[in-house]
């Protein structure tokens, strides 16, 4: 923003030019923000309409009467809080575990040397290219053999197994830390586990929060895994919002689905708003921005 700040001794012409530039910049920023907010705004409006207004042509931009009760109905027609609790449990457990395990693996790739490390890292990154659909059935079969279908244990195991993208994130971050820190710790008698716990991890708060937000968002928004592994009572809000708002004929009630979707998105927005500084810093300091 230094380019647009007004120098104290500038001439009126310069001031006008700077103001015009600033106005143009703000107009562009507000327009882009509006563009990004558009779909969410449309979702909110859809949640406030009647079914007839949703289907109207030409498009009915604003509802004649705001149907606030759609939100109340969306909340009460299914066990919204129960499904939200299920989502929250899974997301918190997975995000906590996968953040710690990915940090540990990322530390290994960044700071330790061993034959085949680069190949192994390549394989790890390559696994990101496997579509989830390819591993879906084998995953189900493994968990079925282990007796873990319709439990939350798969998310614990997935959490303990680290996630390639997050490993990459941590690896990039840890690789940028000065070698002297590590050497000083070794001189002081630290092993690598201690170096990780005592020195590297406490320094990586931004990337930890970025990783936690990413993992939490993945799990909160995941439809496929809970749909595959959990029964209707134990499933998550993402599955319930997509499937539970139907009429007696089994067809979706779109205005309730829209209202529920707004409420479903709110926790993610709040988490991002609260932790955005850490998230942005984490992404930028790991060289992934």
């Amino acid at each position, binding site marked *: 923003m230094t380019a647009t700040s007004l120098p104290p001794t500038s001439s009126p012409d310069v001031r006008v030019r700077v103001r015009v530039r600033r106005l143009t910049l703000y107009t562009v920023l507000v327009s882009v923000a509006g563009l990004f907010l558009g779909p969410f705004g449309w979702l909110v409006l859809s949640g406030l309409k009647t079914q*007839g207004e949703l289907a109207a042509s*030409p498009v009915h931009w604003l509802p004649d009467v705001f149907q606030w009760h759609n939100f109340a109905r969306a909340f009460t027609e299914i066990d919204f809080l129960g499904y939200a609790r299920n989502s929250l*449990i899974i997301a918190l457990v997975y995000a906590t575990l996968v953040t710690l395990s990915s940090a540990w693996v990322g530390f290994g790739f960044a700071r330790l040397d061993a034959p085949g490390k680069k190949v192994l890292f390549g394989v790890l990154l390559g696994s990101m290219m496997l579509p989830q659909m390819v591993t*879906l*059935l084998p995953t*189900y079969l493994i968990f079925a053999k282990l007796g*873990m*279908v319709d439990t*939350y244990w798969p998310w614990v195991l997935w959490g303990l197994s680290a996630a390639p993208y997050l490993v990459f994130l941590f690896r990039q971050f840890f690789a940028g830390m000065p070698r002297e820190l590590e050497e000083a710790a070794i001189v002081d008698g630290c092993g690598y586990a201690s170096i990780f716990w005592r020195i590297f991890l406490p320094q*990586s708060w931004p990337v930890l929060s970025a990783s936690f937000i990413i993992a939490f968002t993945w799990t909160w928004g995941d439809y496929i895994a809970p749909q595959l592994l959990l029964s209707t009572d134990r499933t998550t809000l993402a599955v319930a919002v997509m499937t539970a708002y139907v009429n007696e004929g089994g067809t979706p009630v779109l205005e309730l689905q829209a209202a529920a979707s707004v409420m479903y998105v709110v926790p993610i927005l709040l988490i991002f708003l609260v932790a955005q500084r850490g998230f942005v810093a984490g992404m930028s300091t790991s060289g992934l921005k």
Partner: protein
Amino acid sequence: MRAHAGAPPSRRRFLAMSAGGAMAGAAALSGCALQVSSGVSGSGETVTVMVNSGDILPEQIQQAKKDLGIKIVLVKYDITKLIAMLTSGNPPDLVRGVGAVELPYFAARDVAEELDPYFARSSVLKADDLDPVNDLWRFDGRTQGKGPRYGMAKDFSQDSMYWYNTAAFDKAGVDYPPETDPVTYEEWLATAERLVQRKNSQTVVFGGSFAGLTRATLLATITASAGGSLFSDDFSRVDFTAPEARKALAWYIDYCRTKVGPSLIQPDPNGWDGPTYQAGRLAMSNSGYWMGGMIGADKKLAEVSRLAPAPIFAGGERISACQGGTGLWMPRGAKNKDAAWRVFEWFFGEEPARARASGGWGIPTLKSLRPLMPAKEDYQKRVLKVQENELKHFSVVSFTPYTRADAFDALFNQTAPAAMNGQISVDTLAGRLNAAINEQLKRGKEQVG
């Protein structure tokens, strides 16, 4: 190391937070779902039922627990999940299925349990009380509609019938269709062209929709109306160049080309006819009796809505098939078959069946439940009269066991838009469809053996 934004926590604080998070997670897990669900393993008096939301209501599950002493665990229907469960040897005890298209597929692959012995000893579901629509759930190893029963429909409609909005007809000055006599497909299309309303080259009111439940069942049914069969005698091939199938295909492509209703080249953003019809943006909707459940809930709409018989082809047979017949079947590998059958009887013959029959969202599949169909209001009486007359023309249009309808539709959807846009002729389309779909059927036949 203060280069990073955000205040780093102390090591002690970080460890405390981690421990807290892990403890909270462990407590949450142990409180919620550490135990393996006995429902999924299928043991004891627990029956796992794979259905869609709304098929079985939570209060009905409570009631079943009280009345039958059986705990019902619901699993959301999903074909991937079903295949995974079948493969793992732990299938649900009962599974939702669309009888018209799915039963031959699963029965031919030997994963569905024959239910004739259960029906034979049932005091709830008696053979002479079963509506003919339940024949969609019979398969003799080659032809649907014959042989042992593998399931039952929960309710049904004759899906080539259509609803129309009298206000749209009045506005356009078009005569209403006859109440119990069918119009021809050509007349239906001509009427739709008169009813469509456009503004600035945008369709404001669709003249009529004709999409069927799937393209596969729609084309098979229209071909049967034209007096032919889409499939060969052994159901291993389609032939769109046969005169009757070509006639059906040509009519459907005409319907799409004229853009009187939703189609692949003019999709309805609502995804189905209900909201569009309710908003007064659709003059005729190719939906059967079941859509009356939605229409009946809106008094104004009900007043102007009429149900009409399925169209016919001039000189063709009067056929009014069911393209769905959604119900339940029992996997051969189900672990708890006797309890599953008790739930089956309860679902199709007891309280849930009575609730569905009186709801107006479909015709009951037990003849004894027909008196429960809504007939209090004038519009309900009118609809019922048309529907009762139409039932005389019900027939099963058999579907192939060698492909799923969605695979058939995917191939059709890839090929047909060129013809709908006028880029290729119907004959060219027929040839391309034969090549693509027969290849699919060939692979399916190899799988079945």
